[in-house]
């Protein structure tokens, strides 16, 4: 080690400066390969300055030579401009290999009716792969990546119970225009006993065992002006799709987590909580954020997810 050091020191020049008598400064010349690499970057920069936008000049800048981009603008006109990332993107979005392929399918989807898409295996395969990505980017945060939803907050799209309807048309409308699931809060309308009664009736609709007297009193509240529940949930309790009112007769619960417990008292408590607090849930509208063709793909995707009707 020390041998090597001595040898290398012997070979090294000094700058000729001396401080405090004998402190000298080594001069280690740069390795040749490094120096040439450095010169190469300088040459690269010079070429770059010529080809690409580079130096500010007055109120403008050098725009680069021999490097124009031609692209088709949104209004259909063909434009040519100096190299820049924005023009490059416009061209890429229209003419890139991926873009061309997807545009081809997209225009097919845009022109096709829902019936045609559903009947065409090739278009369905394309729909599944593209819509899965769209769903992941835009819907999964609320409805979950598999559409399973979150009880109380966001409905399950993967089951065959629909608040607003599971036909293609209704799903399309839901996605394009959004939905506002609203049920008034009854905390000021009912006292604790009435709340228990009506909740008992609601639970009985889906076959839960409840106190019979309470159920009968609750039925009266549900079916009359007193509660007015039948306006939205229908007298049979099966729900009104035009209001997004839940079906109370099935085993599927979207807000009150009834299936999450076996304890009848807790079930009752959870239903009471929903009735007293009401519901306000908003499904955003997507007509501005997504293109009509994208909404079409998602409609088919959601329809298929949830055993659509």
């Amino acid at each position, binding site marked *: 080690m020390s041998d090597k050091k001595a040898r290398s020191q012997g070979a090294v020049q000094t700058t000729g*400066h001396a401080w405090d008598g004998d402190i000298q400064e080594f001069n280690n010349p740069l390795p040749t390969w490094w120096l040439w690499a450095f010169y190469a970057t300088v040459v690269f920069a010079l070429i770059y300055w010529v080809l690409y*936008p580079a130096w*500010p000049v*007055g*109120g*403008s*800048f050098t725009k680069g030579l021999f490097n124009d981009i031609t*692209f088709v*603008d*949104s*209004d259909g*006109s063909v*434009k040519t*401009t100096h190299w*820049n*990332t*924005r*023009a*490059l*993107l*416009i061209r*890429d*979005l229209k003419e*890139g290999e*991926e*873009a061309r392929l997807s545009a081809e399918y997209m225009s097919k989807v845009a022109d096709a009716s829902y019936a045609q898409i559903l009947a065409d295996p090739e278009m369905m395969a394309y729909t599944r792969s593209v819509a899965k990505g769209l769903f992941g*980017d*835009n819907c*999964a*945060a*609320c409805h*979950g990546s598999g559409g399973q939803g*979150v009880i109380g*907050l*966001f409905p399950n799209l993967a089951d065959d119970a629909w608040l607003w309807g599971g036909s293609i048309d209704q799903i399309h409308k839901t996605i394009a225009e959004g939905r506002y699931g609203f049920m008034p809060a009854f905390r000021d309308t009912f006292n604790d006993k009435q709340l228990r009664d009506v909740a008992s009736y609601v639970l009985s609709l889906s076959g839960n065992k409840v106190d019979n007297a309470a159920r009968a009193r609750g039925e009266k509240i549900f079916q009359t002006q007193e509660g007015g529940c039948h306006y939205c949930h229908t007298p049979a309790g099966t729900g009104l799709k035009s209001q997004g009112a839940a079906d109370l007769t099935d085993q599927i619960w979207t807000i009150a987590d009834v299936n999450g417990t076996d304890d009848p008292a807790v079930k009752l408590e959870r239903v009471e909580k929903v009735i007293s607090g009401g519901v*306000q*849930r*908003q*499904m*955003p509208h997507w007509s*501005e*954020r997504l293109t009509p063709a994208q909404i079409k793909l998602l409609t088919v995707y959601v329809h298929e997810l949830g055993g659509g009707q």
Partner: protein
Amino acid sequence: MIKHENIETNAGLLIVLTLIVISIGGLVEIVPLFYINDTVEKVSGVRPYTPLELRGRDIYQREGCYLCHSQMVRPFRDEWLRYGHYSLAAESQYDHPFQWGSKRTGPDLARVGGKYSNAWHVAHLINPRDVVPQSIMPNYPWLQTTDLDYSDVQARMRALKRTGVPYSETQAEYDHNVATFGPETANKLDILHAEENLMQQALANDYDGQRDRVTEMDALVAYLQVLGTMVDFSRYDEGYFAEFR
């Protein structure tokens, strides 16, 4: 003639010359932005934040959201497909400091406004895993339980006004805002009515789902919901934006 040795042995001179050399790089990059005519796109719709959104932005910075979230959609195809239109310089013209960021542990937020409902944001900020099971974002439950302190919102607006954000104090400034942004927006940019406006926006929209309170959650969600929504891109041809590069 200045010799190598003279510079090296004179610390003061060495510092001055070093500063000059390293400032050249910065100056060449920054100075032209002040006089090149077309750096900020001329688009309508971009306005300064309302008092409530402004407080939300302060909370965004206080909580360090920018450490995991950028607010800058770059002009690449993959970003376009995921987030939407790339960010314009014009969209952050009233941001001081801007929140572009460069770290994306979470997704970019430049266009998150309107993407989710208020209720989603509230649930997500209290505990992200309630809505996104695999999320690694921290919980911010205190936002929902801490009343918003807006006692100094006027001072904050004045500070921003000094940097060139057109909040108004005088009648002339107000009139100017009416001409630029329309009367409805101009009212919200009026420093003298900041507290009133803040309360009104919070109560009218009830971002946090607690009707009787104005919390930090109200402010933060109001801010998130406006991000990236000010420019109506359907009004412009894409080629127009390419002229600014």
